């Protein structure tokens, strides 16, 4: 690693601190309890698309595998089950096999918060208020420019698209094609996507990234993309239409900044998804970690009706510091 001979990015880092302060202020004002959490855990939720960091605790003959948490969810949901109420975590999360790029760092900062008694669309209003608060508090003359027209970004409303509307408008995919796996894969093939060994979920992500995302959050307002297909539900509750999940993501300047979903509190469904994900991890030869069975037990005990939101904190700061990469926010990095 190189030595540091000059302090770089100080102005951006100061904006990072201002955004951090604004977030804490917002959370305190709205009665969210700040919680600090372990980042080392002996077991994790199996997720087939997130690789993890593995380490080991040693004490004489005792050896125990520990994993850096890719998200604070396993701890926050336990606390919700125990009755902590509205709460948030702003701290580190770790994801392996993700090279440092403008938008990724294997060690990053996550803002995750839960509010009881509201669904994902009500959470959208809460997130908008948070963005407004940050925008009012951060003092930076060059901040938050929109890509198109370079006007200042406004946070007084969302630009909203359901996934169905967005795919129709930006990718020319009709509703009946979007939700029919066979038709969707055929459409993807016609567009030139390589469909060999590639299923619906991957092609959906590829088409979203290539054709839809660049058009989101570029008109001067943040864009809310809601009702993702049920195949992308992850830990979200499903909608009554049988096709979509109560999950959304939001974008600013073509970049996904965060997402939220009405939390799945059906432990049987959760258990099913766990088994499926664990199987996929094995197939993909990913690190064979201990599965957090206590997490399912906690859900069985009873997770209150709530919505959780996760925001990539560095990406959020990038918006308000008008920077193009996570690295520009750091005083020191291992890059």
């Amino acid at each position: 690693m190189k030595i540091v001979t000059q302090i770089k990015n100080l102005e951006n880092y100061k904006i990072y601190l201002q955004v951090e302060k604004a977030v804490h202020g917002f959370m305190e004002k709205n009665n969210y309890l700040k919680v600090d959490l372990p980042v080392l855990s002996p077991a994790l939720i199996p997720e087939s698309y997130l690789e993890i960091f593995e380490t080991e605790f040693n004490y004489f003959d005792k050896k125990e595998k520990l994993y850096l948490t890719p998200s604070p969810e396993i701890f926050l949901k336990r606390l919700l089950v125990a009755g902590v109420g509205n709460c948030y975590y702003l701290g580190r999360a770790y994801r392996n096999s993700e090279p440092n790029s403008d938008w990724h760092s294997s060690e990053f900062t996550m803002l995750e918060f839960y509010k009881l008694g509201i669904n994902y669309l009500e959470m959208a209003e809460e997130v908008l208020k948070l963005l407004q608060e940050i925008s009012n508090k951060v003092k930076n003359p060059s901040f938050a420019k929109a890509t198109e027209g370079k006007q200042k970004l406004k946070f007084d409303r969302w630009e909203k698209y359901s996934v169905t509307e967005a795919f129709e408008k930006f990718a020319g995919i009709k509703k009946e094609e979007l939700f029919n796996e066979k038709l969707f894969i055929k459409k993807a093939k016609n567009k030139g996507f390589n469909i060999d060994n590639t299923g619906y979920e991957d092609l959906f992500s590829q088409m979203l990234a290539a054709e839809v995302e660049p058009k989101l959050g570029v008109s001067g307002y943040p864009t809310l993309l809601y009702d993702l297909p049920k195949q992308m539900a992850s830990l979200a509750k499903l909608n009554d239409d049988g096709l979509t999940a109560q999950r959304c993501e939001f974008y600013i300047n073509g970049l996904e900044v965060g997402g939220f979903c009405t939390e799945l509190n059906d432990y049987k469904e959760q258990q099913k998804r766990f088994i499926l994900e664990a199987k996929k991890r094995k197939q993909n030869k990913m690190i064979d970690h201990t599965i957090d069975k206590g997490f399912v037990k906690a859900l069985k005990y009873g997770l209150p009706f709530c919505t959780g939101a996760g925001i990539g904190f560095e990406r959020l700061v990038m918006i308000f510091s008008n920077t193009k990469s996570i690295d520009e926010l750091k005083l020191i990095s291992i890059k």
Partner: protein
Amino acid sequence: MRVNAGNLKKGEFVFFQGEICQVQKADFYSPGKGAALMKARLKNLISAKNVEYAYKSNEQVEVLDVASVDMQYIYKDQENLYFMDERTFNQSALPISVVGEISRFFKEGEKMFVYMFDDKPLTIRPPMSVRLKIIEADDAAKGDTVSGAKKPVTVETGATVMVPIFVKVGETISINPETGEYTGRV
């Protein structure tokens, strides 16, 4: 050479939908809810159009093994730039739309590298820096003494460049042709 799409780099050449494209941008992107992706901007070297594409990062992609040949830029017309291989005297034409904005800084007679595949020219390898003489410049407006103030000047290829106000007509300057920025006096 086959590589994981996750290792694609700017400037490399790939086949995309049966046509040769040059990677303009390649960024790793993991949405967390589907496969990790490599978001790429590919320039089709026939139509000169850019296409946005997202590879799965573990997808195998054939990166073309191209040669870069030393050539002399001889002239241009409405559509093409013409280059000559000085050893064989063979001429190659490249559409201006494929080479892009950078061609504003090409001076006739200059040596350049042209990427070739199967004996066909693809595009040029951008020089790190070009040196051009200023042929037209306004004197700095009186009283304009703000440090870092800039003015537009015209260089011998006809392109306009922003330079510090103290730079004068007749001077030769170096320019980064990819960004069009003044980098110094020569």
